[in-house]
Each structure stands twice: as C-alpha cells, then as structure tokens.
C-alpha cells in the first residue's frame, strides 16, 4: 500500500537548517491501522504531511499504491490527493460558510462529479456517520464531535485508499474522542487503511500498530493488541 525508504526532510531556519526527518523507513499494508507517536518536534506531523503530499521530501523514496510520488506538479499532486487520500484534521477544517452536505460534497466536486450524484453520495456518507438530519446545518451549528464526523464523512466521500488523521481527537473531550475512535475503528474493520498521528497513549492503543518517532528517526515499531473503543462509550 505504502512504502517509504530513507526519507529525509529539513527546514531552513535562518542561516542553518533543521533536520526534521533523518531517514525514515516505513511500510504499511492494506487494512492496517497505524498510530504515529512522538513528542512535539519528533517529526510525526512532517511525516504525515509528506505521506499526504502536502509537503515534499528532500531525499528518499515514497511509493503510494504502486505510484512513486516524486517531483509532482501542483496539479498532479491535487489529483493524487483527491484520488488516493482522505484527510482528517485536529481542527476539523470544515469550510465555515458551507453546510455539512456541501462540505462533504466538495472533494467530489473536485473529482468532476455531477451535482445530483454528488448530493446523493454526500448524503450517503453523512448517513454513515449518523448526521443525515444535520446535512443542512452550518459547521458552527454543530458540536465538536459532530464536526469531526462531518470531516470524516468528507474524507470518506472520495473513497480514498488511505485515510490520514492528524490528531483527530486532539480537540475533543474524552467521551467524544472515544466515539470518534469507535467510528474510525469501524472504518478499519471495513478494510480502510488508516494512518493517524497522536500523542495520546490510549488513542494510540486503539490502533493495531504503533510507530514511535524521536528526533526524526523511528525508535520503535510494534504491533499491538487493539483496544476496542466501544467498551468506553
């Protein structure tokens, strides 16, 4: 599904540069649910951004679903993002003047899908996250958990191969966090590959594999016994 070899990334800071990723090797198979952990500054978000094609590596190899991701034009990157990837963010990143339905339909718009078809698909995914009745509400009329569920529906809408979540529960209280995790686990059960950045131990333990980063290198890469979230809900 995803293979990364000797990935390096550094950011210029003034005259010097900060070496954030110092040779990452990672391979994720289809159907996996991986938590990337690490303290702040460990490079976990940078890694996720590179996997998400929001950022480009300086060095190394990145192959996504058999396609080498290298020297992409902006347009190509946009098309790949749209086709392969679904994003879930800590701060939800919904467009605040669009209602839930329109937010979910947006990636489909960029796929060039017809309006009626878009609406239908968006409703389907909203129903899946249990928010069909909230389809015409604006984000600021929704609770944090609901917003994140809209964001998940949006990430799923384009039927991506890989779901990337950057601290998906970071802005939520514990109860809501578990609800969201329960839902993400369900998606994984259905076969979606999920990659998630988190610094919360309990959230990480709800994944099937934990990759720990420190100072730009992988310290530990272990498969764990998945803790099911529904028992806390």
């Amino acid at each position, binding site marked *: 599904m995803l293979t990364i070899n000797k990935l390096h990334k550094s950011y210029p800071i003034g005259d010097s540069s900060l070496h954030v990723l110092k040779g990452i090797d990672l391979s994720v198979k289809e159907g996996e649910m991986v938590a990337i952990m690490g303290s702040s500054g460990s490079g976990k978000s940078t890694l996720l951004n590179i996997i998400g094609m929001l950022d480009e590596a300086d060095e190394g190899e990145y192959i996504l679903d058999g396609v080498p991701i290298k020297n992409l034009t*902006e347009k190509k990157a946009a098309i790949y993002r749209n086709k392969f990837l679904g994003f879930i963010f800590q701060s939800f990143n919904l467009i605040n003047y669009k209602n839930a339905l329109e937010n979910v339909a947006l990636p489909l718009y960029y796929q060039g899908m017809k309006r009626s078809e878009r609406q239908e698909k968006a409703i389907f995914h909203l129903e899946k996250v249990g928010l069909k009745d909230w389809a015409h509400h604006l984000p600021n009329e929704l609770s944090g958990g609901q917003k994140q569920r809209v964001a998940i529906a949006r990430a799923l809408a384009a039927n991506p191969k890989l779901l990337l979540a950057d601290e998906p529960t970071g802005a939520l209280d514990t109860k809501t966090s578990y609800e969201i995790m329960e839902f993400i686990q369900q998606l994984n059960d259905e076969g979606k590959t999920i990659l998630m950045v988190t610094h919360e131990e309990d959230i990480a333990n709800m994944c099937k594999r934990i990759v720990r980063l420190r100072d730009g290198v992988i310290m530990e890469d272990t498969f764990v016994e998945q803790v099911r979230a529904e028992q806390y809900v």
Partner: protein
Amino acid sequence: MFDIDLWREIFQSINKNRTRSLLSGFTVAFAILLFAILFGLAKGLENTFAEAFNDDANNSIFIYSGMTTKANKGLQAGRRIQFKNEDFDYIKEEFSDKVQYITARIYRNVTATFRNEKNTYNVRAVHPDHQYLEMTLIKDGRYINQNDIDNSTKVVVIGRLVEEDLFLKTTALGKYINLNGIQYKVVGVFTDEGNDNEERIIYMPITTAQRIYGNNDYIDQINLTYNPEMDYDQAIGFGRTITEKMKDRFDVASSDQRAIRIQNMAEANKGVGQMTSALGIIILIIGFGTLIAGVVGISNIMIFIVKERTKEIGIRKALGATPKSIVSIILIESIIITAIAGYVGLLLGMGILEWAGPMLETYFIKDPSVKPSLIIGATITLILAGAIAGYLPAKKASKIKPIVALRDD
C-alpha cells in the same frame, strides 16, 4: 466552457461574505459613478457649444464689404466697395469645388400690411441656397426657388411671427401681402431655431429686390458654406484665399482690414473644437485615474480576501483543488464584483445626470448624458479591470501551500 458548479461556488462565496463583497465593490462603484458624472458633464458642455452654433450652418463664411482705409493703385482711401451679381458669380464659379451652398443677401426695411394689420420688418433678398445656410425650416408652402430668381417673381416667404402678427389666426399661404405699396404673394411660411427676431424676417428673391429697389445688380453681402469635407485649417485657408481674391478684384490694399471683411465659422469652431477635445482628454485622464484607483482598491481587498481565505484555500487544495480552479474562483469573483459594482455606479451616475440635468442648464451644461456606446466600452473596461484587480491575488492564492494554510495557530 461554462461550468455551472464553478459559478455556484463563486456566488456562494460572494453571498456568504456580503459585507466584504459590498466593501470591495464600493470603490469601483464610486469610481465609475464619478467617471459617468464627469463624462456626462463634459458631454453637456459640448452640447451647449454645439447648440450655440446650431442656428446657422456651422461651416459658413460671410463676406462683407465696407470703405477702403488705405490708398492703393492710385485709388484714394475712403472708397466704398459695392458687391455686384458678377462678384457672386465669380466666387461661385472660381471655388465651385470648395463651396457647398452660396447666396447673396440684400437687406431692406419694409412696412408690411395685410388688411388692417401693419408692421415694419426686415427683408432679406436671397438665393434659394440661403435656406440651407440659415437652416430655415419651412412650415407651410415652399422656399424661394430658381424659377423665382429667373423671373423676378413677386413672391415672399414670411416668418412664423410675421404670419402671427399680420394674418392673426388665419393662414398666410397663398394670400397677398403689401410691402411698401407693392403686392407680393406669400408662397411659404418658415420657422427658425434661433431667437424670435429670426422669425420676423421676410425673404424674397434677390432679383426681385434688385429690380424694385433701384433697378441695379448690387448685393450687400455674400454668404456661403464651405465643403464640409474640408478640415478647419483648410477652411480657414479657403477663407483667406477668398479675401485675397476679392481684394485683388476691387484693387484693395492687401493690408486693408475694412474694405473686404470675412467672418469664417471655421475659426470659431476650431477654437471650440480644440477646447472640447482638450476637455475630453482631461476628463478621460481623470476618469481613468479614478478607475485605476478603484482597481487598486479592489485588488487590495482581494489580497486581503485571499489572506482571510488562506485556510479555506488550503482545505480546498487538500481535498484536491487544482491551482487552476483556485485561480478561476478568485479571478471570476473579482470580475463579478467589479462588473456588478461598476454597473451600479454607471446606473447611479446616469440616474444622477438624468435628475440633475435640467437644473444644470443655467451653468451652460445642456442635456448631459452618457452614450450607449460608452456602456459597451465600460463593460469591457470593467471586465478587464476586474481581471487585472484579481490577477495578483489569484496568483497569490494558487501559490498557497496547504501545509502552511492548515497549520493550527
């Protein structure tokens, strides 16, 4: 390619951010409003000038004679120069390609009577071409024609007010009017756009006047219009040529200013033309400047909008928006705001001109208005302006890196 979804996106964005859109539109609306008003006022001023010369043909040249003030070729100063039919014929033949209409004039004062009504009037004895020179409008009947000239018929064409004075409520056409004891048939009644005095004039064939008043071939004045294809400088040159030739003909010193005099409308028109075109250029510069200010204003606000929407653009990019789609959104939004605001300004400006127009006539501004052709020009300009205003911000927006936009602050 018409992409309804793109337009839907844009209108949603404009609609959801009404204050912002209104604010950015305001500068352009105001710029166009000012431009329209300035343009209308200039037009009004131009109309005033045009109308001031509307009464007579504005390509006329009047040739008068007077006394010589300088001795020349053995002839003494103080000699009276008298034009005759042959002088009229000479100009007509010599400059046939440069003359459009030509007429001679004889002035007389008469006492006119019809039944019990009596009044004094100016008589102008003329050639048929005089009608076009003076822009006389025939109300009833006809003007003096060549047949009248050839046969020295005793016919007159009278002004509307002469008919009103003498014939009271009845029609004068076909009746006989008595001028200083001689009966003339009224063959026409005319109106004139000039003042009332112009309508208290009686026209008669020049040959009739020459036979009755002194039985000679004298004429008082020659009026002509030059070929309208000539420009002002050519026409002014033509006027000088006539003066020289006439001075030669009457052995007048070339430095004599009084014996042969010429009044050439081309000279006045040239001045007016220069003034109006200078005014036009000034207005254009001011208008263009205001428009540029508007464009800069909108561009600034669009840059601000892009900054404000950085996060949204980042989200869109993360979801698969291509740089091209981002550019289209910002550019078209800018064009729409500019075009709509511009039109509002234009309509407001036209409305104000329409409303204030009648009050401005005292200030020599007549019928200020904006031509329809200007609206088409304005549309193109506005779309261009919107595109220019939106280009930089759109380019900036398309360069936004989603990773930067999505960073949680």
